[in-house]
């Protein structure tokens, strides 16, 4: 019984495997180490955003400001990352701090005012975009130090730094969600906020924490993006929030809260990445790519839900 439940939870994993299998038959390049290195590098930024927003979505919230945080954090970091200006840690901390700050602001407003997270984070999304433009004066911030650029394009022992960071973040977020008190509280708040409060949980603190985590990770994503494209773009990250949220939801986390897993999110991220990659590999015309992408996303989730039903 328990076993079946586990399997059911990872239904999307099965769907994902089947899709991979099919693609590997059509495209011989698909199942190569080099291609998978590319896929995983490509998804790393979306993955980190998705990990963060998984916490938020499990509490029943949403964070639309991710993309703007990416821009603000990226621009802030880039401004401090010119060669011979500051040690590497300074721009990195600045980026993370910017993300944390906006995230905490989201959490604070949401808990103090009881306004829907949708509208608050939509507000910060707009504000954040404006801030990024103001900070950078509307121009890309370039001329970044080699050490900063290394984060996004370097390799350690042959493994891209991005992949290493992705793995560390996945483990970290999984541990927080599954093994810590905060993680337990996150599920409790999302599952039944009032009961959580009546159980003595400080719901406001938990919410501020999840939006802060989401902001912090978006800040990290901003740093990684900036480093990868070697410039802090004030208009970077637009629409990233939808990709991240899509990955989370495809991974089985419910938008009504209380349910979800990091592993699911990772699979959701990979699924999107694999589809993107293989549509390019198979040279599907750009316009049709979008149609196919949409169909596969809906299809995958439909298959997954059918899978649930047949198990019940």
């Amino acid at each position, binding site marked *: 019984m328990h076993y079946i439940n586990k399997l059911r939870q990872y239904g999307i994993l099965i769907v994902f495997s089947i899709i991979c299998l099919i693609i590997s038959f059509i495209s011989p390049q698909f199942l*190569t180490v*080099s*291609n998978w290195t*590319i896929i995983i590098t490509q998804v790393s930024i979306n993955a980190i955003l998705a990990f963060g927003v998984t916490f938020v979505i499990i509490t029943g919230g949403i964070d639309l400001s991710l993309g703007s945080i990416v821009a603000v954090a990226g621009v802030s970091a880039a401004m401090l990352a010119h060669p011979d200006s500051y040690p590497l840690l300074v721009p990195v901390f600045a980026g993370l701090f910017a993300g944390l700050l906006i995230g905490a602001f989201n959490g604070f407003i949401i808990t103090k005012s009881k306004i829907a997270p949708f509208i608050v984070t939509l507000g910060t999304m707009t504000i954040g975009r404006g801030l990024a433009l103001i900070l950078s004066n*509307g121009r890309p911030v370039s001329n970044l130090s080699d050490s900063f650029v290394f984060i996004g394009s370097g390799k350690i022992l042959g493994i891209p730094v991005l992949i290493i960071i992705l793995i560390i973040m996945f483990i970290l977020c999984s541990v927080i969600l599954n093994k810590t008190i905060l993680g337990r509280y996150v599920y409790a708040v999302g599952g039944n906020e009032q009961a959580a409060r009546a159980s003595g949980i400080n719901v406001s603190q938990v919410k501020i924490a999840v939006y802060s985590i989401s902001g912090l990770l978006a800040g990290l994503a901003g740093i990684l993006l900036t480093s990868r494209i070697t410039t802090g773009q004030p*208009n970077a990250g637009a629409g990233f929030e939808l990709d991240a949220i899509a990955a989370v939801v495809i991974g089985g986390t419910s938008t009504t809260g209380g349910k979800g897993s990091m592993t699911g999110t990772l699979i959701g991220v990979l699924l999107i990445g694999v589809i993107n990659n293989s549509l390019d590999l198979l040279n599907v*015309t750009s316009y049709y790519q979008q149609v196919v992408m949409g169909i596969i996303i809906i299809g995958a989730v439909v298959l997954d839900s059918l899978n649930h039903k047949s198990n019940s």
Partner: protein
Amino acid sequence: NQSESDKKNDSEKIVIGISMLSMQNEFIVNISDEMQKKAEELGAELIIVDAERSPLKQIEQIESFIAQKVDVIILNPCEFEASSPAVTKALDANIPIVNVNSATKVQPTAFVGSNDVESGRIAMKFIAEKLGGKGNIVMIQGLNGQAAQIQREQGAKEIMEQFPGLVMIAQQTAEWDRAKSMDLMQNWIQSYGSKINAVFAHNDEMGLGAVKALQDAGMKDKVIVVSIDAIADALQAVKKGDLDATVFQDARKQGAGSIETAFKIARGQQFEKELLIPFKLLTKGDVDPYLKLN
């Protein structure tokens, strides 16, 4: 730095990977169509992907091309700086790369296109002439922070410095969008009314939006509108006299030229390292031949 053995002989089919800025932009679609026409003629295979205006996506696409071992890459950069790693990656992987339409900071193997700053200069020069070096201008900008927006603004401002009588009374983004530009222009008409003498829009879509707003307000004949790209609608509008001028960017030459260059590189033939295709200002008198092109 490409080794001789990589050069394809005449019988082998050449595969060119192309990453385009945005296949939702008419001008870019035109370039891509010209590429396809030329490739058919030369017998090259194209893999065209859409970067959807994201430099990150563009880098990823170049990585994919490298993994697929295409013979040449053509890059239609999203950004001057941000798309540079894409060029570096290709060069590092010993795959020649040709930039089309706009430049990157890192020098590619070859460049085919025009300088966007120049288009801003041309447009503003026209306005300056029409107004006799004196008057109030509003500028409708592209999406803030994008290379085309920054460079077109830069070119326009360079000219304005030469004409102290020209005053920029308002500037605002309409995000390359016709409807947004129309809204913006309507609002400006409310606050500035007849003070506005000329409009410079960073692309034709926005220029046409401004024209529509001015027409609705019955002010079109008093205000000069100039924009950039020379898309089909804009040419029509210039012919009708609605739009005063548009700056022609030669999609045909850019598309065909980039494929030709890429082809030459792959075959190991002589090629031009920088193929500059000039802009051209089109006014009512000279649009006819361009209308036929479409």
